[in-house]
């Protein structure tokens, strides 16, 4: 049975066919990609927290960036990872990439790190390294807390991590000065908090997709997370802080106007609803 055809104006503005909505959104996206209207971006407190946590890591300690994301969330997590890597290089902090799930993230993040390393003249194995994808979730974390070279074994390229110069003096989690979780998956943060941040007091910071970030505000409030990047917004803010405006800034232009369109559509739908309600004498139409 097909839905009744809208007859009045109030019905029509409540029932704009969905393909028009899709077209409008696609139009806004293309318009902002081709002719961006750049608006100023001011770093928020959670974003500043991530930057400060990176800058505060002692020079003799490692930063571990866990890249638990894949192409499905790459629009947000890719620029987040990239700006975190820039922040590490600019502050001359040694970092390693690792990945617990999904395995795709480690290759995507490796490409980003290689690109940034070229810019800063940083050497693989000396200034940064890639521990690769490690299967086993909690088991990996428990093992690396006690003995990193044994738990990690080989790096992304098959070299034993113990042979990398960056790993000199690194035996267990006490030589890790910060863990930055970049993820589009839930439960990763809880694992790191339960098994690493809680027992060993290793500082944590995180970068999440915008939809999952609200769940993790309590950890920010309790100082279990030193900072947090919220979706593309957080990435854009960090890009501004490290003076490398890139993909996230471009995405924020698009997202700004896409949000405006959605708000306008919701208002329009409700205007129709209120008109219809007025017509029926206050009853639900």
């Amino acid at each position: 049975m097909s839905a009744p055809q809208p007859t009045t104006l109030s019905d029509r503005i409540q029932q704009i066919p969905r393909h028009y909505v899709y077209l409008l959104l696609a139009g806004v996206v293309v318009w902002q990609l081709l002719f961006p209207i750049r608006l100023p971006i001011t770093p928020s407190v959670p974003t500043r927290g991530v930057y400060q946590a990176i800058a505060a890591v002692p020079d003799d300690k490692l930063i571990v960036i866990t890249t638990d994301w894949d192409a499905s969330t790459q629009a947000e997590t890719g620029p987040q990872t990239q700006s975190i890597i820039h922040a590490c290089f600019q502050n001359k902090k040694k970092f390693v990439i690792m990945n617990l799930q999904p395995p795709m993230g480690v290759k995507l993040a490796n490409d980003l790190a290689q690109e940034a390393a070229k810019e800063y003249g940083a050497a693989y194995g000396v200034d940064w390294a890639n521990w690769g994808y490690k299967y086993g979730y909690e088991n990996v974390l428990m093992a690396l807390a006690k003995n990193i070279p044994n738990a990690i074994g080989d790096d992304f390229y098959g070299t034993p991590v113990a042979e990398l110069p960056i790993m000199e003096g690194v035996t267990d989690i006490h030589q890790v000065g910060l863990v930055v979780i970049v993820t589009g998956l839930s439960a990763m943060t809880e694992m790191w908090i339960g098994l690493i941040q809680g027992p060993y007091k290793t500082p944590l910071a995180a970068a999440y997709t915008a939809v999952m970030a609200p769940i993790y505000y309590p950890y920010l409030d309790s100082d279990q997370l030193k900072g947090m990047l919220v979706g593309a917004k957080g990435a854009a803010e960090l890009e501004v802080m490290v003076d490398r405006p890139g993909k996230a800034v471009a995405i924020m232009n698009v997202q700004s106007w896409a949000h405006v369109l959605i708000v306008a559509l919701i208002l329009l739908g409700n205007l129709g609803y209120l008109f219809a309600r007025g017509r029926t004498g206050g009853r639900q139409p």
Partner: protein
Amino acid sequence: MWFSRLLQRLFPPAPTPAALYLYLAFALAGSIVLIVALHRLLGPRGRRWLIVFVTFIAGLFFGLEYFYPVHGDPEKNFLTDWIEPVSVMLTVVGALTVGLGIYSLFQVHGRALAQRRPGWHNSLAFFLATFAMLVFGLWEHYLHLPQPPPDVLPWPKVVYEILFNGLFAPLQAATFSLLAFYIASAAYRAFRVRTGEATLMMAAAFIVMLGQVPFGAWLTSFIPADSPAAFFRLEMLGEWVLRWLNTPAQRGIIFGIAVGALAMSLRIWLSLERGTFFSEQS
């Protein structure tokens, strides 16, 4: 430490690559013999008790190690030295599930292809994609390219990059990008101010949606950032909603989930959970 020493005694590092493959072959053969023997010798009741026992011991080990008081420098208890080898062992066991997953996928799609079931071309695409990524992924890995990679890449690496960065990643990203269109359409259709609660929710949604983008900040940028009214700037209001309204609600949910997870873990640890291997058998 004695446990680590015992492990090193029992499983010394392979002196040569040939010895490593020999050890692997022995381990594989030994595992198969052990599994077949257990399967033959133990009836359903015996298998059940074996699994219950192993599950209980594993849960007890990790629970005790985490909660038992620690002392000394570095701080540890009588189980701490076991954590690293046991965790590595579990990682190895868990990695076998990857093989199980591949076997299962090959079985399902192989049957669909052999019997020309509806949608068999999807199964064909699965096999082509799997083998292409497998061959070029391994090939690229064993090229052992120097770091940073040379400017001119060997062709297997180029093919791998095309498959990964040119096909796989954009396909996955495009699939998930479609969500934006569905969300826009669903928000327009579903968000109606039918009740007071719905109106409040919409107001909060508008504040957060606009507060999270530069447009929102620009809209209220006429309010000076250092004035007492700065709180009413949209980005500040959005942050306030997330930190002061959202946080307590999320904290409550997290506590609820944690209590539920604790109860569920206890049931799994004691093999009381219905729907596990045992209740399916019975």
